[in-house]
């Protein structure tokens, strides 16, 4: 399977099953519409005839030879040999946990999927140290030979329960010593309101990553990210974020925003954050029911597509000016990325990753919290429902009909199970809008790499 597209003046061909990325000329681009394996020794006359209306015969012949050569090297039209590996998509040790240390929030962001900290549940709650401690023990006990254990403090707003966060980090560190090779990687996601010097320093010392929520331009942020009284938050958080990032030497963080129908020109938000000095930036499409005025619908797709293209071009321009920054969804390593096995399995929610609520209830991930059908058990019971676990463990790109034949499958890995469930009622049924966005982002990400490669070649 190949996928070819034109973007920003480049003709790009992705060979799906080898991961090969090729930059091709117009002739090859057209040739690929007309040829398919198996390849005949000589270019068939009908193809020559068809293409010779636009191209020189000798060129056509040499192009055919090149296509054939790459096919023989298995980097063009390479076979799908992966389905057998999908069988290994079974329950694996636990290695990541999302701790909802609060189900309460000090803000009322209009689009919050956690429904202002309540996750569709009525009561606002804080996790006790006892429950958190049991959760960490549970993770340790079920982590098999995994060495790096990720724990994300999430909410609601986790800084509202920061004492427990601190105690849990200390507890985790003390438990590491009981094992030869286990190490916690703590991370935190915050809205910034409660950040002060003490918390900043603690976070920078103990957390291997920190996600700072902010939507970009002040007016955009303040429209959605508001206090209970409706006032905006930008001015309060921006300086705190700068300070925190400065103090951690710009390492291992994201400023993360959400874009909605109200800021389909979100490139300006990303650039605004870059101008403020941030180098690791993420902007996510909002997850919301279509009835909301800010929801993204199919009709917004063309606008979002061209915006992603504009953003990709802006990134290339910034790079040239020596003002490099990363956009999370365009980051892709075409050589050293995750192995194919990982790509087959996807996000590992409900299998290697679970979320735990303040009551100790276990869900496949933070976005499933409150979905009774997928409550996997409680930390106090010390075990999780193996049927649910197996169902999630078996979810992979070959178990999802739409994904099997999708060109993006090794980059997207079958999408977000939670989105699939929310929109289609089935974790195996990808949500079409997410698919379209993901595919566009990948085209942009690959184009950026292609542009850099083309540039390097010119310099040689």
């Amino acid at each position, binding site marked *: 399977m190949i996928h070819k597209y034109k973007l920003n003046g480049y003709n790009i*061909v992705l*060979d799906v*099953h*080898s*991961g*090969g*990325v*090729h930059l*091709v*000329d117009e002739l*090859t681009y057209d040739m690929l519409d007309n040829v398919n394996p198996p390849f005949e020794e000589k270019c068939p006359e009908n193809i020559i005839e068809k293409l010779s209306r636009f191209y020189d015969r000798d060129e056509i012949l040499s*192009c055919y030879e*090149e296509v054939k050569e790459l096919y023989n090297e*298995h980097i063009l039209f390479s076979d799908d040999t*992966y389905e057998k*590996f999908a069988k290994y998509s079974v329950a*694996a040790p636990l290695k*990541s946990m999302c701790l909802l240390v609060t189900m309460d929030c000090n803000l009322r962001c209009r689009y919050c*999927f956690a429904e202002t900290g309540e996750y569709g549940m009525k009561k606002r709650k804080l996790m006790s140290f006892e429950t958190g401690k049991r959760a960490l023990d549970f993770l340790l006990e079920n982590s098999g030979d*995994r060495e*790096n254990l990720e724990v*994300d403090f*999430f909410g609601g707003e986790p800084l509202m329960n920061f004492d427990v966060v601190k105690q849990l980090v200390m507890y985790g560190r003390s438990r590491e010593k009981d094992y030869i090779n286990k190490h916690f990687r703590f991370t935190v*996601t915050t809205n910034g309101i409660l950040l002060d010097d003490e918390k900043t320093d603690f976070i920078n010392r103990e957390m*291997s990553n920190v996600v700072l929520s902010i939507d970009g331009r002040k007016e955009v942020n303040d429209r959605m990210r508001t206090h209970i009284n409706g006032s905006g938050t930008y001015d309060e958080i921006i300086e705190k974020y700068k300070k925190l990032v400065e103090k951690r030497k710009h390492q291992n963080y*994201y400023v*993360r925003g*959400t874009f909605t129908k109200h800021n389909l020109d979100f490139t300006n938000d990303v650039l605004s954050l870059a101008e403020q000095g941030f180098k690791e930036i*993420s902007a*996510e*499409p909002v*997850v919301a029911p279509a009835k909301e005025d800010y929801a993204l619908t199919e009709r917004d797709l063309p606008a979002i597509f061209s915006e992603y293209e504009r953003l990709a071009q802006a990134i290339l321009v910034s790079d040239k000016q020596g003002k490099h920054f990363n956009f*999370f*969804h365009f980051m*892709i390593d*075409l*050589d*050293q990325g*995750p*192995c*194919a096995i*990982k*790509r087959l399995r996807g*996000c590992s929610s409900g299998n*290697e990753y679970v979320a735990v609520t303040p009551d100790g209830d276990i869900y496949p*991930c933070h*976005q499933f919290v409150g979905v009774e059908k997928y409550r996997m058990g409680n930390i106090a019971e010390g075990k999780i429902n193996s049927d649910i676990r197996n169902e999630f463990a078996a979810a992979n790109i070959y178990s999802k009909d739409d994904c099997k034949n999708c060109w993006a499958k*090794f*980059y*997207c*890995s*079958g*999408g*977000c199970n939670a989105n699939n469930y929310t929109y289609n009622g089935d974790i195996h049924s990808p949500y079409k809008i*997410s698919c379209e966005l*993901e595919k566009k982002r*990948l085209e942009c990400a690959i184009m950026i*790499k*292609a542009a850099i*490669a083309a540039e390097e070649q010119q310099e040689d």
Partner: protein
Amino acid sequence: MKHIRTINKANLKQTAIKGGCGRCQASCQSACKTSCTVANQKCENSK
């Protein structure tokens, strides 16, 4: 080659044979939290 330039190693198949060690991070856990792009993660198997 004159018409085609391959810009990467195209080594996905090799990674299937050696891969699957499970050291790497779970997908959307510590980054974006609302969507999944597995391909932008790092392989952590140094062996």
